[in-house]
């Protein structure tokens, strides 16, 4: 007798992986709690999180659009202005630190920083620098827009049944004086980088664990029945500010995020981890889910991840974007590069500086 005798097949490499075609590997995730169509599901995080909201909407789940745009406005315009991407108009939230900031500000809007980046007569919101193309016309409009988003975020937190948060990065830039963590380095999409005011920080496992635990405790304090699903984005870093090689920096970042997510999910019954990172990056699949740039995820990759997610719910959903009539682009379907390019990813702007 030993503890391995009664374990299911999925616990053993040979039957679960070694003897299967990679795409036939199944049972990869056993959800702690279900996602059904009656649940109000919120999504936030890095750009990969946008695939969750799309797939949920496409399959008739109740994705919670807490800050909706008028339904007669085009998808393109709404997405350019940060609508329909996440459950509130937060823009990409790459780090656990930024996630916690947003939650804290939603509860106490008066604590949100006063900082405004002004350039060419336009006002950029440092907390979401790309939310408004070319920035806001004036400071008051910027602040009003942020207040609306914080109120929406609070409603989302209070009334969601499930919240999916996709962790993206460990690297961030912050204000030395206020401690505010920016989603993008000042100077990339607004503002001016000033080494006396801004500092780089690569968050450690313990820092992220602490921040994410804090964020989750706050979420559950407001909404005790909220189920939280953590995922790690499989999209590599566009650039690293560590001075090291971006490949090595990516491995560090994703490893730390994966470890934190796993640790929290193991500790807390209302937090689960979904392995979107493993489904795309495992060497077993031999990398077919990346586009030619070896960074963005192909439509097949997204389909594979989302199919795995929904198969674990009731095993019946076809998430393939191929199955959906795509009305855009004169009949051209959103496949491969197109689909990935459709994500709104702020960090891609760093490519302009190489």
């Amino acid at each position, binding site marked *: 007798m030993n503890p391995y005798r009664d374990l299911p097949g999925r616990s053993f490499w040979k039957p679960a992986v070694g003897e299967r075609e990679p795409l036939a590997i199944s049972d990869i995730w056993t959800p702690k709690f279900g996602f059904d169509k009656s649940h109000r599901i919120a999504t936030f995080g890095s750009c990969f999180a946008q695939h969750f909201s799309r797939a949920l909407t496409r399959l008739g789940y109740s994705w919670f659009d807490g800050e909706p745009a008028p339904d007669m406005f085009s998808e393109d315009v709404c997405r350019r202005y940060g609508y329909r991407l996440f459950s509130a108009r937060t823009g990409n939230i790459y780090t656990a630190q930024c996630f916690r900031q947003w939650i804290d500000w939603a509860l106490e809007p008066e604590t949100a920083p006063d900082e405004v980046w002004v350039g060419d007569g336009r006002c950029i919101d440092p907390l979401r620098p790309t939310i408004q193309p070319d920035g806001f016309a004036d400071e008051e409009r910027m602040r009003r*827009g942020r207040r609306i988003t914080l109120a929406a975020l609070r409603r989302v937190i209070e009334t969601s049944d499930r919240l999916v948060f996709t962790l993206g990065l460990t690297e961030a830039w912050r204000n030395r004086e206020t401690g505010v963590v920016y989603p993008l380095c000042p100077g990339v999409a607004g503002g001016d980088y000033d080494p006396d005011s801004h500092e780089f920080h690569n968050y450690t496992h313990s820092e992220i664990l602490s921040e994410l635990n804090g964020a989750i405790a706050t979420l559950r304090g407001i909404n005790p029945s909220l189920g939280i699903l953590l995922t790690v984005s499989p999209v590599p870093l566009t650039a690293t500010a560590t001075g090291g090689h971006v490949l090595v920096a990516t491995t560090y970042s994703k490893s730390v995020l994966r470890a934190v997510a796993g640790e929290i999910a193991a500790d807390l019954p209302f937090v689960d981890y979904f392995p979107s990172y493993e489904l795309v990056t495992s060497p077993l699949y031999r990398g077919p889910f990346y586009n030619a740039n070896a960074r963005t995820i192909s439509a097949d990759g997204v389909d594979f991840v989302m199919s795995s997610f929904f198969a674990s719910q009731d095993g019946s959903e076809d998430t393939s974007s191929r199955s959906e009539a795509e009305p855009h682009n004169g009949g051209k379907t959103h496949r491969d590069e197109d689909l990935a390019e459709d994500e709104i990813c702020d960090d891609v702007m760093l490519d302009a500086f190489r």
Partner: protein
Amino acid sequence: MKICIIGNSHIAALQHALREGRFARRGIDFDFWGLPNKQFEEIKYDQGILVTTNLRKLKALFGARHGRLKIGAYDALVFHGGPLRLDRLLISIKAAGEGFDEFDEEFLAAGIESFMSGLNAIRLVSEISDSHALPIVVSADPLPARRRNGRRKNPEIAAEDLERLQMIVGRLIEARKAMYLRQDAGTIEDAFYTRGMFAENAKRFKNDGMMTKEGDIKHMNSRYGEIVLGRIADLLAGAA
């Protein structure tokens, strides 16, 4: 001045106003051309001519001579009830937030532009104004009248929201080298509704003298058409 009024079923009010002798002004002749809503979306502009493949419907409405509309035969064009769907836009904005204040002005302008640029009437206006120098008017289709049967709720829209929408729509139309003609303020009640009296005894677009369906709150009568014709004439006289 020879003016062609182009549009969908909303032009019936204007047609009937003329037929009933409610409007006559020396030196102004009106022609009408168009198709009901869905078919209107299929009308195309091709080298100085508006064309449609739906000739049977067109013939039933206007007679054989109007199969193709030569732009050059007119001194001015008026697109009426193209439709701009101001009511639907307002309801859509209201449903998404509490009203216009929930959204940044630039986003609203971009969103409304995205909606309007998908309307066939606006596409036609852009194409025609790129190739012709004649005055073009885009006349708003009427706001709905209030529902009286109580089965469905009448949405409440603030007058300021309608005003802000009109300002944005006006700018977008002027950017296409056309003039925007708002709905006459005297025909509006409760900020967002066409006065009920204008929806009474409205006749159909079909050339059969029949009334619109009982409870139709979208289509207006010849008294409304008379007001619109007068405003069109005034606007074009001022522009001439």
